[in-house]
C-alpha cells in the first residue's frame, strides 16, 4: 500500500466526479428532493377528517355532539343535511371519510335518560388511518357521554375511576416527520454511496480504462481504496448537509451525540460501499448497474422498518431483517435523533453493522479481485 498512489487515484476520482455535469444534480438535488418529498409525503397524522353529517334531529343535543367533534379541529363537515343516503354516498365516492347518522328522536331519548344511537360509518379502505379515526371518534363520544351524563344526573357517574394516564416519549406530538426524516438521512446515504461507487467502476470498464488502470503499478487493494474512499467522503458530506437540513428545515430535534452519528455512518458505509463494489462485479453496463441497484435497494428499504414496522412481520421475514444493515442504521439514527441514547444503548446495533460490513466487504473485494484477474 502506498498512500501517495492512493491519494492520486482519489484526486482523479474527485476531478472526474465534479467535471461531469450530469453528476451534479445527483450529488445535491436528489438527496434534498428525497428529504423534502418524504418529509411531506409520509404523514399518518389524524387531521382534516371529512364528515358527512346527516342530522335528522337538529336539536341542542345533536349539535352538542357535532360541536364536540368540530371543537377538536381534526374534523370538518363537508355535507350537512337530513338525507342519510346522500351522506353514505359521499363515503362511497371517497368524498368523506366518516358519515354520522343522528336519528329524528335523538334528543327525546336522551332527555328520557335512554341511550340514543349515534351511528358512525367509517371508510375502512386505508385500514391504519381508519383505526386511528375510529379511536379518535370513540374517545370524543366517550367524553361527550360523560358530559351529557353529568348534565343529566348532576354528578359524576363513574363508580370505579379506572383510567390511564398516557405519556408519549421521544416524539410527544406524534409528528410523522420526526420519525421519517432521520430514516431518509440514512436512506439517502445508502442510495448514493452505493450508486456512485458502482457507477464509477463500471464507467472505467465501459470506457476500457479499467484495463489501463490495471497495467499501472496500482495493486487491486489500492484500486479498491481509491474507488471507495472518495464516495465515503462524499457520503459523509451529504450526511452533514442532509442532517443540517433536517434540523433547520424540518426543525427536528437532535437529542444525541453527533460524534456517535458520525461513527455510525462510517460503519454503515462499509456495507453500502461493499454492495456498490459487488454490483459493479455483476454488471457490465451502467444500465445494468442501475437496475441491480434498484433490485437491492427495494428489499433493503422494505425490510428495514422504514415505513412498515418490523414487529408486524412474520417470523421468517423478521429473521431476514437481521441481515439488513439499513435496519440497524435506522435504529441508531432514530435513537440518536429522537431518544438521545448513547453507545450503551446502541452498541448492539453498531456491532452488528461492523460484522455485516466486514463480511460484505471481504466478499465484495474477493469477487472484485477475481473479476480483475
Amino acid at each position, binding site marked *: 500500500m502506498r498512500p501517495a498512489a492512493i491519494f492520486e487515484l482519489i484526486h482523479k476520482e474527485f476531478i472526474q466526479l465534479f467535471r461531469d455535469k450530469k453528476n451534479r444534480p445527483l450529488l445535491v438535488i436528489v438527496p434534498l428532493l428525497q428529504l423534502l418529498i418524504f418529509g*411531506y*409525503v409520509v*404523514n*399518518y*397524522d389524524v387531521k*382534516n377528517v371529512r364528515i358527512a353529517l346527516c342530522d335528522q334531529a337538529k336539536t341542542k343535543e345533536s349539535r352538542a355532539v357535532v360541536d364536540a367533534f368540530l371543537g377538536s379541529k381534526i374534523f370538518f363537515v363537508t355535507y350537512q343535511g337530513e338525507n342519510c343516503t346522500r351522506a353514505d354516498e359521499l363515503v*362511497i365516492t*371517497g368524498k368523506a371519510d366518516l358519515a354520522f347518522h343522528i336519528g329524528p328522536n335523538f334528543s327525546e331519548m336522551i332527555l328520557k335518560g*335512554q*341511550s*340514543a*344511537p*349515534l351511528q*358512525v360509518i*367509517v*371508510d*375502512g*379502505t*386505508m*385500514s*391504519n*388511518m381508519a*383505526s386511528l379515526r*375510529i*379511536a379518535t371518534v*370513540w*374517545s370524543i*363520544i366517550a367524553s361527550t*357521554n360523560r358530559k351529557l*351524563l353529568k348534565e343529566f344526573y348532576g354528578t359524576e*357517574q*363513574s*363508580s*370505579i*375511576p*379506572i*383510567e*390511564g394516564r*398516557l405519556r*408519549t*416519549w*421521544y*416524539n*410527544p406530538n*406524534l409528528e410523522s416527520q420526526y*420519525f421519517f426524516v432521520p430514516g431518509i438521512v440514512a436512506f439517502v446515504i445508502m442510495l448514493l454511496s452505493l450508486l456512485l461507487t458502482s457507477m464509477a467502476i463500471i464507467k472505467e470498464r465501459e470506457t476500457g480504462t479499467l484495463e489501463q488502470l490495471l497495467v499501472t503499478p496500482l495493486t487491486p487493494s489500492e484500486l479498491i481504496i481509491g474507488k471507495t474512499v472518495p464516495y465515503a467522503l462524499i457520503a459523509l458530506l451529504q450526511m452533514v448537509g442532509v442532517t443540517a437540513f433536517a434540523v433547520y428545515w424540518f426543525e427536528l430535534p437532535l437529542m444525541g451525540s453527533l460524534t456517535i452519528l458520525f461513527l455510525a455512518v462510517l460503519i454503515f458505509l462499509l456495507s453500502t460501499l461493499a454492495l456498490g463494489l459487488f454490483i459493479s462485479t455483476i454488471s457490465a453496463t451502467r*444500465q445494468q448497474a*442501475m437496475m441491480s441497484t*434498484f433490485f437491492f435497494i*427495494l*428489499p433493503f428499504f422494505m*425490510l428495514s422498518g422504514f*415505513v412498515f*414496522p418490523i*414487529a*408486524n*412481520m*412474520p417470523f421468517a421475514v423478521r429473521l431476514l431483517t437481521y441481515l439488513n444493515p439499513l435496519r440497524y442504521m435506522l435504529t441508531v439514527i432514530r435513537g440518536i435523533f*429522537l431518544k438521545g441514547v448513547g453507545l450503551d*444503548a446502541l452498541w448492539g446495533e453498531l456491532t452488528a453493522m461492523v460484522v455485516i460490513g466486514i463480511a460484505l466487504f471481504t466478499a465484495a473485494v474477493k469477487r472484485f479481485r477475481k473479476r480483475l484477474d
Partner: protein
Amino acid sequence: MARKEFYHTLRDIRSLYLAFAIPLLLVLLFGYALSLDVKGIPSAVIDHDQTPISRDFLRHLAANPYFHIIFRPSTTKEAIKLLDYGKVTMVIIIPPAWAEKLKANRTSPLQILLDGSDPNYASLSRAYITTFIEDFRQVKEKPVLLLDSRIRVWFNEELESRLFIVPGIIAVIIMIVGAILTSLVIAREYENVTMDTIKVLPLSAGEFLVGKALPYFFIAVTDVIIAMLLGEILLNVTMKGNFWILMMATVLYIGIALSLGLFISIVTKSQLVANHTAVLTTYLPSLLLSNFVFPVNNMPWILKFLSSLIPATYYLRVLMGIYLKNVGVSYLIGDFLILSFMLLGLMTTNYLLLRREGM
C-alpha cells in the same frame, strides 16, 4: 416488429427479472410481510399493586391479541431502559395501592409510557390501550350510556392493511413494467443508430409504436393477472366487484404507462437518461402521490395538486372501488373519462413526435 421486441426482452435476463420477478416479490412482500396494522405491541408491565384486581387487569391484557407482554420488570428504571433500548414500545405501570384507592373512589391512574418514535405505531398503540382500559372499566362497572355509539366500518371491515395494499401494488407494478421497461426501447434504437434504418423501412409511425408497445402490453397484463391470482389464492384478497370493469380500467392504465414510457424514450433518446426520467416521473409519483399507502389528504396543497395530475390516482380509485367497495360503473365514470383522455393525449403526442422526427 412486436416479435423482434419480444425476443429482445427474452434475451435480456435482467429485463425479464424486472418484468416478472419484481411484481411477484412486491405482491408477496406486501401481502405477507409488510403491514401497517398494529398487533402484539411489545410491552412491559410493572405491577406495584399485586391485588386480585391488578392481576385480573394484567390477565385481560395478556389475553388481548393487540398486546404482547414480553417483560415484567420490577422497577420503573428497568422499564425505562427497555423503552430506551427499543425492546418494548409500551410500558404499563400499575401504581401501589391501586385497588384500595379505586374502592375508595379516588383516582389513581395507571401510568402508560409509549415510545412515540413511529407515530403511526404509537397512535395505534395509544388507541388500543385507551380502548382496552375503557372496556375493562365497562366490564367492571357497567355504566349508563346516553350516547350509544355504533361505529360501523365499511369496505374493509376487518381493518387489514393487506386488503388495500395488495390491490394498490398492482398500479405500482404496471408503472414499473410498463413505463420503466418501455422507456428504454426507442432510446435503444437511437443509441444503436438503428433508428435511421427503421425510418427508411416501410413502417408507419403508428405501426412502429404499436409494435414497440405490444410485447410489454402482454407482459403487463400477465403481471396483473399473476398479482390478482396471488392475492386471491395465497393472500385472501378477494375482489368484491366486477372483474371486467377493473380489466377495462387496467387496459387503459397499461396503455398510459406504455405511452409514457415511449414518450420518455422518444424525447430523451438515451437509455440511461430515460431510465432516470422514468423512475422519477412515473414510478415514484405513482408510489408516493397516488393515495396508495400515503394519505394524500394530509399532504401540502402542491403535492395534492400533483397527485391530481398523475394517472395512478385515478386508477387506484377504480382498484379500490372494485376490490373493496363493490361500486358500479356509474361511480367510476369520472375516473374512466380522465384515464381515457390521458391515454388519447399521450398517444397523439407520441404519434406526432415520431412524425416530426421524419417517420
